[in-house]
């Protein structure tokens, strides 16, 4: 992690009663960086944001801004402004008073407040709405007022708690772009909490994926998308298709044993940290090349899986098929629809197939995956495992 971190979280633990929400978490955010905390509900991302903002007192660890420990400081002394998921606008105040309230608290003169409010209104395209109350605004306008209220006090760090979740889909795309552009223009350090991976990738410089109170992976959007560090991250980033395979690592490549439905394959390791044994393979529906069963053999390196089409639905731009493979259903995209019941082969290029080691013993957490493994390599259910273990 970089040493010139502007916002640094060290060893942070937070618990409500007996439940631990955050577990010894470390995170460093550079000045002017836009970081997205991404995760499913309950993963602790909002708690992390609230701990940064000072609304949650950590049981251990520190939060430091610009080298200054702010762990126990009240929310207003941290130089951070929080935009709430519900916007939390004050319904009894006009837009101008909502935006100007933070400045009033700072004891600025009326004229100075009016000037700054006008500035913010211009910045966010809220001109002419100053005298309205929040109830008379659209969702997108409310969102901008909430943003304006936070920006008016000129915070060093802007914290956004699921700021787009209350907007409808079309406005969300627009506001997503606007917030990203605004952040770059102001050069402000920003942290956004979201459960939407597209939102995170579109807005942030760095995506931090959280799982059960810990950071599962962090990196640029491209990095976490195309090089997920764990099965969880891969699934969260859209690689919902999962298979269990047997693999042997040797000579910079992983040799995948043939199963009942899957072909044998040899894939370049390509920086993957794998050891021989049971592997979980994950891939996206759009990574699949779908061909009629028995078509010409695979040219490039990759995995081929035989299956039978169950159904197809049009997604716009392509067709998504559910394909029966053994007793599992996988999803695969194709430019044209295949008939239901058609035998097909799913081909996944090596660079789009994410492989992870499964625990060697019975530790496979996913029972359906384990059953699928038995189904896919029924010929010698124990034999290859033992062979692989001896080899490694």
């Amino acid at each position, binding site marked *: 992690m970089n040493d010139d971190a502007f916002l640094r979280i060290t060893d942070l633990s937070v618990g409500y009663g007996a439940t631990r929400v955050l577990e010894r978490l470390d995170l460093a955010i550079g000045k002017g960086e836009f970081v997205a905390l991404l995760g499913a509900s309950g993963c602790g991302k909002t708690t992390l944001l609230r701990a940064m903002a000072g609304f949650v007192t950590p049981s251990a660890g520190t939060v430091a801004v610009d080298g200054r420990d702010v762990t126990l400081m009240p929310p207003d002394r941290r130089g951070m402004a929080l935009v*709430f998921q519900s916007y*939390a606008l*004050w319904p009894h105040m006009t837009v101008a008073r909502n935006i100007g309230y933070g400045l009033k608290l700072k004891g600025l003169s009326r004229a100075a407040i009016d000037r700054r409010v006008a500035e913010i209104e211009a910045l966010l395209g809220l001109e002419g709405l100053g005298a309205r109350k929040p109830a008379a605004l659209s969702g997108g306008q409310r969102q901008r007022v909430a943003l304006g209220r936070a920006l008016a006090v000129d915070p060093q760090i802007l914290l956004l708690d699921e700021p787009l979740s209350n907007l409808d889909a079309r406005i969300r795309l627009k506001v997503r772009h606007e917030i990203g552009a605004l952040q770059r223009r102001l050069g402000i350090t920003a942290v956004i909490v979201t459960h939407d991976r597209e939102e995170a990738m579109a807005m942030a410089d760095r995506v931090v994926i959280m799982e059960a109170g810990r950071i599962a992976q962090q990196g640029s959007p491209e990095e976490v998308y195309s090089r997920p560090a764990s099965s969880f991250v891969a699934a969260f980033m859209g690689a919902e298709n999962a298979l269990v395979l047997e693999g042997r690592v040797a000579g910079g490549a992983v040799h995948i044993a043939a199963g009942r439905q899957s072909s044998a394959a040899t894939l370049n390791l390509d920086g993957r940290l794998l050891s021989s044994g049971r592997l979980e393979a994950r891939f996206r529906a759009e990574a699949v090349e779908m061909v009629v069963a028995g078509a010409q053999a695979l040219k490039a390196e990759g995995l081929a899986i035989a299956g039978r089409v169950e159904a197809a639905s049009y997604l716009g731009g392509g067709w998504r098929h559910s394909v029966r493979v053994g007793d599992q259903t996988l999803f695969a995209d194709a430019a044209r629809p295949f008939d239901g019941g058609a035998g097909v082969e799913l081909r996944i290029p090596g660079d789009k197939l994410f492989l992870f080691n499964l625990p060697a013993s019975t530790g496979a957490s996913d029972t359906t995956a384990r059953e699928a493994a038995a189904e896919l390599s029924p010929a010698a259910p124990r034999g290859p495992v033992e062979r692989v273990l001896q080899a490694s």
Partner: protein
Amino acid sequence: MPTPALGLLLVLPALAVILLLFVVPLAASVAGAFEVGGGFGFGNFIKTFELYTSDIVFTLMIVSLSTAIIGALALAIGGYLTLGENPRAVALLRWLYRWPMFVPFIVVGQVLRTFLAKNGLMNNVLIGAGLITPMEAASFLDWRGIVIAFVWKQAPFVALLVAGAMASVDRGTLEAARNLGASRLRILLEILVPQVAGTLMVALVLSFVTMMSVLSVPLMINAQSPTMITADIAFRINAYGDYGVANALGVVSLIASAGVAWLYLRHSVKERA
């Protein structure tokens, strides 16, 4: 049967109850206030204002003062329940503050009679603690006693409604203010209270009307002049069988209550506009 007639039939029982138990007695009382001898006139009102102007003013002042104190106390209680940071103190207050609601006015009157009298518990404690000498001990059994009784009994009711409204306020609006540096007092006064103003007004109007109609407290605590309108009404009927002046006093009381309700309605209409 045509639908309108059926609808009317269904409403009839409720309508009859309202008419017989509310509208007719009210109309009879109001009419009775204008009945002088065999005809109608303002005689009862002239007599009422000659005899009881000071009591009317006394009543309005006491009830208004009580309402103001109740409002302040209810906001303080509700505010602490919402913004308090000591969970144990908040839980204790939440458990404690509602008790007076379940005590009838007449019991409140009796309790405060023994507590506030010249040789009552309050003065005994103060003397025992060395805070005042026995010579300085004074009875609170006058207008102050009535105000204390009203506040003690009604503040929990208003606090209950206000605290409920405060609990349903989006906590984000409070945190947003704290995030920008507002103190707890400012959050209470500038963020929380404006958002529950409507509920507070309703609760205070209800409380005002309730206090206007209490007879036991002024009888038990303040058996002297000036006293409250209710005590005068009871006196007119019990001592003289004078329903005319009693009705006129009732109309005065009704007008005062209606005035408060009108203030509230005007406020809520303005709010909606």
